[in-house]
C-alpha cells in the first residue's frame, strides 16, 4: 500500500469503516482521501478510540466532586488529597493482545497504563491488576495465567513500581477471551499537573522514547473486532514491551516536568502517533504539521501509513516551550532516549504530514473528533433472574467439606502464586498489599503520615444475573473495601469489559451496568474520574460475562488510624455490622457446592451501605476495632476464614440469626462488615450502632487454632489454610 493506492470499497471495508462513515469523510474532505488519510480516519473512528457505541452512555456518569481536579477526558483522572498532593489514576484493558501473546500483551498493558499516569506529571506509586481467565481445566488457561502474571511482574518489577493488589477470577465464560485490566496510581503536585492540549503557533513538537517499528499496526481496530478462528492469522506484529526504556522515560519526563519547558504532553497509546497528535491538536484547537522523515525509525523503508498507525511502545509526544529545546534535548540524551523535533503547531486547524519532501496527508482535525460516529445502538436490558429463597436451596450435610471446597475453589483460593511474582514493596511505602489478603492496598505518600487506599472489584456473576444491580454492587464493593481500611473513598476509575455491542442484549448489559454504577456513585458522592471501555470480547458469537471492573481510590488522612484484616487477637469478639437475610441467589455456595449459576443477585441498598460504612470508618478512627473485613464472595464464613488466616488465629462463629444454616454462613447479603472488637469495646460498639440505626450483632469469638461454626463446621486453621493455598500451585505445576 502506498499513496497511489486506489481507495476501493473493499479497502474502506477492511479499515472497518461503514459506507456512511466513508461518505462523511468524502464530504468533509471534499475529495477522496489517500490511503494515509483513510488509515487515520479508520483508527480515530474505531470503537477503541472514538467510543462510538459507549460515548452517550458514559456521559451519564457522575464525574464531579469536591476533590476532583480532572475528570474523564484526559489521560487519567486527577483528585486532590490535600497538602498540595494530587493522585492521578486510571485503569485500562489489554485483553486481546494478552490472549494472543500473554507475556507481552500483559506487560505492554502495564506499560501503557503507567504512561497514561506519568504523562500527567505523576510518579507512578502503585499498580493493581484485575484478571479473568477461563476455567482452570481449559487447555489454554494454565499457559495464559503463566504468561500474563509473568508479564505483569516482568514489567512492573523492572520499572520499580509496586504491584500491590488485584483480583483474579476463573470462569468458562472467559475461555475464549481473557481479561487483563491494569490500574496505575501516581502521585503529583496538585499545581503541576500536565495536560494534552497543544497551544500556540509554531511551537516545536518533540518525539521521545523508543524508535517506531511496524508493531501492532491496526491494534486499535483489532481491539474493536470480535475474534474468530482466523484471528491468529490476522494478527499484526505483536508489540514487545521494554520496561527499561519506560523507566528511563519516566525519570526523563519527570525531570523535564520540573522545569517549565513542557506546554503539552501526550503518550502514544493505541493508534500511536495518529491519536496522540490529533488529540493534542484537537484539544488545543490548533493545527499540527509533522515531518515524518524526522521520526526515529527502527526499520527501513517505513511508509507514512505505517508510521502513523504503529503502536510501538514507550513513546511520547510533547509540545515544547520555544527556547527550551536545548534543555529538552539535554535531559533526554542524558537518559539515553531517542529524541527528535518532528514538527510544529500551526494555525490551520489541519493535520499535515510530509514524507520525502511530499505532502502525504492534509486533513482538517475538527471532523476527526467532532464527526466521530456517536451511535445510539439498540439495547434491551435483560430482566433480572428470579429470586431464589434460601429454603429452596439444598443444604449440605457436611459443612466441613463445603467449607473446604469453597475456600479452595478457584475464585476464593489464595492467589499467593500470583502476587509473590510481583514486587509489592519497592519504593518502600507499601503499608499493606495482597500479602495480608486484605480488602484494599495501602500505599503511603512518601515522607508523609498519610496514605492512599486502592481496591479493584467486580462480581461478574452478579452483573450477568442483573446488570443494573451488579453494576451497583461493583461500585459499592470498592467503596466498602476502602472503608475497611479506614479510608475516605474519593473516586473511581473503571474498565468496562463487554461483548459485541451490536447485539441489543449485550448493549443492554452495558447500559444497565452503567446505570447501576452511576446510581452508586451518586449515593456515595464517589465520582468516576477516568476509565476505559473494552467491547467485542466475544469468540464465535459467545460473549464474556459482563465485567465492569471498578478501581476505587481513597485517602487515609492519618496513618495512626487505619486497620487491616490482620489484627484480630485472642479473646476479641466478632461483631457483624449490617443485616443478614441469607441471600443465596447467584452465590458462591450455589455455584461451587450445587453447580448452579442462577438466581437474582443480592440487592444493594445504597443507604444501608453508606450508613454502615460510615459507621465502620468511625470505629476505625476511634480505634474501636482490631480487624475489619467486608463480607463479599462466600459470605460470613469466607470473611471469617480470611480474617483468621491473616491474623493466624482461630475463631468460633455463634448462631445469632434466624435463617437456615447455609444461608447464615454463605449468604452474600451486601453492606456487611465483620469486625474484631476488644472485650471492653463491645458494648459501646453495639449500642452506638443501635443509636445510628446500624444493625450490629455479636457473631463469634477469636481464639484457638480451629475454625468453628455452631452446628456446622469445625476444622483446623492450619489444615484449611493448606487447602486454601493449594489450588494455584497445583494448577500451575
Amino acid at each position, binding site marked *: 500500500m502506498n499513496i497511489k493506492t486506489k481507495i476501493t470499497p473493499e479497502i474502506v471495508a477492511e479499515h472497518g469503516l461503514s459506507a456512511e462513515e466513508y461518505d462523511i469523510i468524502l464530504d468533509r474532505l471534499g475529495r477522496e482521501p489517500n490511503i494515509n488519510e483513510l488509515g487515520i480516519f479508520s483508527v480515530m473512528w474505531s470503537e477503541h478510540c472514538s467510543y462510538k457505541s459507549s460515548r452517550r452512555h458514559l456521559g451519564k456518569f457522575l464525574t464531579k466532586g469536591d476533590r476532583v481536579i480532572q475528570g474523564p477526558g484526559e489521560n487519567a483522572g486527577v483528585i486532590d488529597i490535600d497538602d498540595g498532593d494530587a493522585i492521578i489514576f486510571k485503569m485500562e484493558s489489554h485483553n486481546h493482545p494478552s490472549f494472543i501473546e500473554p507475556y507481552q500483551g500483559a506487560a505492554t498493558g502495564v506499560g501503557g497504563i503507567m504512561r497514561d499516569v506519568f504523562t500527567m506529571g505523576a510518579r507512578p506509586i502503585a499498580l493493581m491488576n484485575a484478571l479473568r481467565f477461563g476455567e482452570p481445566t481449559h487447555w489454554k488457561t494454565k499457559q495464559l495465567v503463566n504468561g500474563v502474571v509473568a508479564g505483569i511482574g516482568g514489567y512492573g518489577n523492572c520499572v520499580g513500581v509496586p504491584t500491590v493488589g488485584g483480583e483474579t477470577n476463573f470462569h468458562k465464560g472467559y475461555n475464549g477471551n481473557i481479561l487483563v485490566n491494569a490500574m496505575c496510581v501516581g502521585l503529583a503536585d496538585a499545581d503541576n499537573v500536565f495536560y494534552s492540549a497543544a497551544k500556540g503557533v509554531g511551537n516545536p513538537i518533540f518525539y521521545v522514547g523508543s524508535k517506531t517499528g511496524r*508493531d501492532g499496526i491496526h491494534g486499535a481496530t483489532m481491539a474493536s473486532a470480535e475474534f474468530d478462528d482466523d484471528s491468529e492469522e490476522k494478527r499484526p506484529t*505483536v508489540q514487545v514491551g521494554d520496561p527499561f526504556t519506560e523507566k528511563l522515560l519516566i525519570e526523563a519526563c519527570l525531570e523535564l516536568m520540573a522545569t517549565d519547558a513542557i506546554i503539552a504532553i501526550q503518550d502514544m497509546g493505541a493508534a500511536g502517533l495518529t491519536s496522540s497528535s490529533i488529540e493534542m491538536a484537537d484539544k488545543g484547537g490548533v493545527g499540527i504539521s509533522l515531518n515524518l522523515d524526522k521520526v526515529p525509525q527502527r526499520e527501513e523503508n517505513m511508509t507514512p501509513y505505517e508510521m502513523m498507525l504503529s503502536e510501538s511502545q514507550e513513546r511520547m509526544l510533547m509540545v515544547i516551550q520555544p527556547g527550551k529545546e536545548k534543555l529538552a534535548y539535554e535531559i533526554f540524551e542524558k537518559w539515553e532516549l531517542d529524541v527528535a523535533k518532528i514538527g510544529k503547531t500551526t494555525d490551520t486547524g489541519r493535520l499535515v504530514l510530509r514524507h520525502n519532501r511530499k505532502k502525504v496527508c492534509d486533513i482538517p482535525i475538527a471532523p476527526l473528533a467532532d464527526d466521530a460516529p456517536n451511535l445510539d445502538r439498540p439495547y434491551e436490558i435483560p430482566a433480572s433472574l428470579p429470586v431464589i429463597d434460601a429454603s429452596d436451596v439444598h443444604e449440605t450435610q457436611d459443612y466441613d467439606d463445603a467449607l473446604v471446597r469453597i475456600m479452595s475453589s478457584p475464585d476464593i483460593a489464595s492467589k499467593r502464586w500470583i502476587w509473590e511474582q510481583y514486587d509489592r514493596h519497592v519504593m518502600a511505602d507499601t503499608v499493606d498489599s495482597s500479602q495480608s489478603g486484605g480488602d484494599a492496598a495501602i500505599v503511603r505518600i512518601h515522607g508523609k503520615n498519610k496514605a492512599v487506599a486502592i481496591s479493584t472489584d467486580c462480581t461478574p456473576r452478579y452483573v450477568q444475573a442483573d446488570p443494573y444491580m451488579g453494576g451497583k454492587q461493583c461500585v459499592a464493593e470498592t467503596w466498602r473495601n476502602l472503608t475497611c481500611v479506614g479510608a475516605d473513598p474519593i473516586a473511581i476509575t473503571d474498565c468496562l469489559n463487554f461483548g459485541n455491542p451490536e447485539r441489543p442484549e449485550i448493549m443492554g448489559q452495558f447500559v444497565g451496568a452503567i446505570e447501576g454504577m452511576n446510581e452508586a456513585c451518586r449515593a456515595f458522592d464517589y465520582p468516576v474520574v477516568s476509565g476505559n471501555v473494552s467491547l467485542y470480547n466475544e469468540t464465535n458469537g459467545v460473549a464474556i460475562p459482563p465485567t465492569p471492573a471498578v478501581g476505587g481510590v481513597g485517602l487515609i488522612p492519618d496513618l495512626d488510624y487505619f486497620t487491616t484484616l490482620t489484627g484480630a487477637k485472642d479473646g476479641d469478639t466478632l461483631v457483624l455490622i449490617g443485616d443478614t437475610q441469607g441471600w443465596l441467589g447467584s452465590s458462591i455456595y450455589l455455584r461451587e457446592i450445587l453447580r448452579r449459576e442462577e438466581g437474582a443477585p443480592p440487592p444493594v441498598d445504597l443507604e444501608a451501605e453508606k450508613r454502615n460504612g460510615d459507621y465502620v470508618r468511625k470505629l476505625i478512627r476511634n480505634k474501636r476495632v482490631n480487624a475489619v473485613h467486608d463480607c463479599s464472595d462466600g459470605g460470613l464464613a469466607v470473611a471469617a476464614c480470611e480474617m483468621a488466616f491473616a491474623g493466624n488465629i482461630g475463631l468460633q462463629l455463634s448462631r445469632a440469626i434466624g435463617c437456615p444454616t447455609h444461608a447464615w454462613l454463605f449468604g452474600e447479603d451486601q453492606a456487611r462488615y465483620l469486625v474484631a472488637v476488644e472485650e471492653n469495646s463491645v458494648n459501646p460498639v453495639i449500642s452506638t450502632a443501635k443509636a445510628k440505626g446500624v444493625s450490629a450483632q455479636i457473631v463469634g469469638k477469636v481464639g484457638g487454632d480451629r475454625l468453628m461454626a455452631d452446628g456446622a463446621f469445625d476444622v483446623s486453621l492450619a489444615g484449611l489454610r493448606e487447602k486454601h493455598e493449594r489450588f494455584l500451585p497445583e494448577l500451575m505445576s
Partner: protein
Amino acid sequence: MKAIIHVGLKPGVLDPQGRAISRSLNDLGFEEVAAARQGKVIELDLTGDDSTAAKARVTEMCEKLLANTVIESYRVEIED
C-alpha cells in the same frame, strides 16, 4: 543423539536486549559494533537413533514449548 535448537526474535520484533548490548559495547569503546541481537540455543540429549524422526519430534517440541512462535522463529539441527 543431540538436538540443537536456535531460537531468535522474528524480524521486525523489537529486541530491547540487543539494543542495550550494542550500546554498552559502544560505550566500552567497541565502536565497530553496529547492532546486536540476542537469541538462545537449547541443546537436548535425546535417546533413540532415528534422526529423521527426532527432527520431527523436536520441531513439535519447539511449537509446543521451546519457541514462542508469535514473536520467535526457530531452527532445529540434529547431530548424531
